[in-house]
């Protein structure tokens, strides 16, 4: 699951940067909203209490730290927004599908 969801994050990001290199700039918010919506839908497809979103959120947060220190503002915007998005998804996942462990 975590692999699939990593791809859901990585592939659109790669497309986003390829398009950017060809001067076909997309608004980063498109990318963030798109990934968030797809991952949100996948919550109900997988219906698993696995805490994968939290791992992804943490990984993206580390990328945000890196981007922040090196002044990569666009990447910081994307990674921090996605990190927050994944934390939100992680909590929704916990509340909906991880009840038995509570």
């Amino acid at each position, binding site marked *: 699951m975590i692999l699939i969801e990593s791809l859901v994050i990585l592939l659109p990001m790669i497309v986003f940067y390829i398009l950017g290199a060809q001067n076909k700039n997309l608004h980063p918010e498109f990318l963030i909203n798109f990934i968030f919506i797809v991952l949100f839908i996948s919550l109900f497809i997988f219906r698993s209490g696995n805490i994968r979103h939290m791992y992804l*959120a943490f990984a993206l947060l580390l990328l945000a730290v890196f981007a922040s220190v090196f002044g990569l503002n666009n990447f910081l915007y994307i990674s921090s927004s996605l990190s*927050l998005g994944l934390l*939100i998804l992680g909590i929704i996942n916990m509340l909906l599908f991880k009840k038995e462990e509570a």
Partner: protein
Amino acid sequence: MHILKKFDTKVIFVLFFISLFLVLIWLPNNKIIAGGDIGIPTYAPQKQLEEVTSSWWESHATGISSPVTYTAVPFYLTLSILEKLGMDSGMTQKIIFFTILFGSSLSIYYLGLNFSFNKWTSLIACLFYIFNLTSLSVWQRGVHNAMLMLLLVPLSLLILVWGIKNKKYVSILIINVVSFLLAYVFGALGFLFSLWLLWTVYIAVILFDSWSDKLARRFLLTYFFLLIISWIGSNLWWITNLLQSSNYTLGQFTQGELMSRGSDVLAALKPYHEPSIILRGLSRFYLYVVRDWGEIYSHPLFIMLSWVPTLIIFYTALIRTNYKLTPWRFLIVLTVLVLALSKGVNPPLGELNRIPFDLFQFLAPLRNTYEKVGILLTIPFSLLFALGINQIISIFKAKKMDYLHLPLLVVIVMCLIVLVWPLWLGKLFVSEGRKYAVSIPSYYSQANSWIKSKIEADDTRILHLPLSWGESIDYNWNYTGVEPSQYFFNGSSIGYQIGVPPVDSRIRDILLLIHKQDTLNIQKALVSLNIGWVVVHNETLFRDRILENPERIDAWLATKPPFIEYKTDFGPLSIWRVKDEYRARHFYSSGKLVRRGIPNPTSSLNVWNEINNLNDSFLTEIQKEQSLDKFIFKNTIIPTSKIKYSPLGLIDKETAINDIAKVGFLPDSPLFVLTLFKESLFSFLNQNDRVINCFDLSGKRLKEVVLLKRGRRLEEADKAIKRYENQFKECISVGKDTLSIYLNTPQARDLILSQLIRQKNILENEFDEQSLKEAVNQVKDILNEYLAKLGLAPKYNPVKQNLGKQLIVFDYLINKKGDYSVELKEVDEQLIKNPPQIIQIDNKAVDFSAAEVGVNIIRYPQIRLDEGFHEIQLETGEEKNILTDLYDNKKLHPDPGFTYQKDPESGEGYFRGAPSNAIVSLIFDIPNVSIEDIYEVSFDIYHVGGTAPMFIMTHDTDPTDSHGLIKPAVSRNIDFSTYPSGWRNVKLSYTPVLNATSARMIFMLSPQTGLNNPTEVLLKNISIRKVFPYQLVLEEDNPSVMPLGTAEIKSVKLNPTEYEINLTNQKLPYILIFSETFHPLWQITDSSGNKIDLPHFSINGFANGWFVDKELADRIKVKFMLQNALTQGIIIAVIFFIFSSIFLIYLDQRGKIK
């Protein structure tokens, strides 16, 4: 147990001394927080207490009503008790700060223990609660509501947690008591939402986790229900006032305005609420925009450190065992909820956050969500940070990596000390770029002691000079912030613009009159404002805030204006009194009545020429009571806008159609719904600018009309025009509040203007079809009127324009159909010699020459105008070049580095500037600039080579930088990159700064260094002219005006919300004027308190007027009825509190007995 207590005692000591240490270094000596947008709220608490217990704040200019007035009562009550115990304002503020720091950190410590954290974890949590970036922003902001919130949040949560854990209903009672003591927090209504969010989330998480336990579930639901009921009941003492006054506050705005206000502010704050900012709990504004502590927070080490707490907090989510802990679940849910709200319109799905603001106008106080809700982050961040540290140490221990303890300790110390160093070093309120802690000079209290009794006896108010444009002022005792006279002086003080447009319009008028030193009109303007005293603040630093120079004010007063007399000085304060014979008092009956069209907010009132006697009055609004019309002596309409006509950019029609938008499916296509769906989806996801996006869509709608028409599908085109019209109207509504900001932003202005110009061009040139003509004309009318109201173009295209003449376009909003005489007033001799001609009224060409020319007035024939929008176009010659004499002199004596030469071919003269090794300037001094006029600068320039020239305007009042160099008001590099070499004409519009009396125009040339391309610039035909400085005024006389009666009125002020009036010699009908800000809740009652129904309206631009056409009793009262809400609210709240307390205690006792 013994060890536990010992540790607790140590923690209490540590927290006590840390709190004490911080307070002493934050506020050294006898300094108190003062300045910024908060003023000096802790100065003179007794006076503040009296003010906040009143529903009418008389001290702010002509008075204002605040819906959350009473919440501050417990705060000021506490301060005034401390003051009575002999403590000064410095000491009381220290006590407040100490209480917040000590109380909040201790609450977090016990909260940690209640959440089953160990003692060390709880200790780290409470230290992090004090030393984190969010708390740093809150303290540094200096707002007491937010500071007290830092205490109320953990304390109330601790009580709630304790109450639920021990099943004690009495905890609700304690929460109510704490809420009362800290009710000042609720003055910012956003915090109220935050507090309830915190309590609700906690109860919801506990309920979620114990849903299967029937008893626990029942207890929690009952507890929550009782909490809501008893809290609302116990707080009715201020909620009643809020609800009643909100009707009137909100009533000032239309529904559309309120909606745009809410979500537009949210959108405007987007960069400040980006996830990368809020995840770290820092303030972008203070750290990266204002940069209060310089560049240090941009250093990679600090950036890295700022992420450490967040990383540790996120790390706790990777530990599976945490998912079983209810406290962790609560803290992480709270974190996520607060972050999701705080991010505003930022992704993911930020547009969803707009919806509640657009739907529910009462959410307006929450629109800066990060400031209001984000403060809650301090709770989960501190507790999760400490938990995370604890769990990392446990892992190190389990994996036998003890050597990592030291690096971890270093990281913790760095986060708690280095990251928030301003807290430790006392750089919170005073640092290099900040000075928000000051000692108040004693001359203010001396002056107030002297003047207080006199003001009370006179029932009059003080005018403080120089007045502040807006609300801020700088004093030489290191004060910078909101004008603080209302804190220093008892009674009512006019010192700044209070944000109520009618009052601000009167204050602006005085500012302009004082600048012009127009003694006669100053005297007239002061009368209806009930100004009895004038205090000149010679301690004012006037340059940076663009205020009037106190020395100029003193020079004017030295001319001994007849209506005012000098009384005394206290330090730099100079006190003057308005003589009795020049005052109309707080209550008086009106004399002659004139009507003045809606005042232009950017100019003086222009009404004083019609006012002769002290009690003459003017109306600025159309009154519902038609009965007043027959008493109006004269109706004067001043233009709402005045523009010098220059054609909008010329573009080819086909180019306009091509460029305006790209169109896919047309409206008659079955797939058009996809277009609409795509547009709404893109608006939702893309979050492009709302206003620009709206105008772009209107362009698209218009292009659809064009394509349908060209395809001869006229019926569909007709429907499409309606769609275009609706879209355009929506853009007008969306941009209503913010468009002026866009028009001052070059890029946005270009985008919107080019869109509007294309639409205008297409509407004027594309449609000849008879069937579409009516609909097109209608929408063209809307577009043109919109452009005219923005002051961008006339509504009606000029029918003709003669060469060498300028066309001035005046717009009017006529409030009443009638025959109007047209006059140009206060004109100079040059215009008298060559009077302008009226050449167009609306879309009709006319040829009106001056019918009568007076000493300084030009009259035109009378015209008949209907109610609504009208436009008059005036043709006149060019204004005189102000530089003419200076120019001739400069030819003979050019500035160093310049020569005056003649072109051998044309014989035309020009200045040649060629700096060799230093900067050279060609300077023209312009005396007597008028701050109400716009100037047009024009010159021909030839940039032969080298560095581009710079055009600069400076003023006698411009501020200087730290090196003593003038910071010019206008500075522009002239861009030659897109022009071929040769002569070119440059035209610039220029408005003098608002305190200037003279200006200097400078062409500055710098030598080119390092390249073989020396700077050489030629200049000729340099001119500066006023843009037609006169107003074309419409006037309607009333030949059958009926005289108004009078009454002799004596008033006694019982308190700021109640006056007793004695009436004698009532000659009906008359208008009773009360010079306080108009508010519908000011009402006349008989001596037993029954309301007397009289027509009530706004008069003199801001005051209350009542039309009295039946004789009133000799003794009546004028009351601000909102004050009753306080009494009612207190009674209900006390009763409710007593009964709910008894009930809650009973519930607990019943449990014990069972």
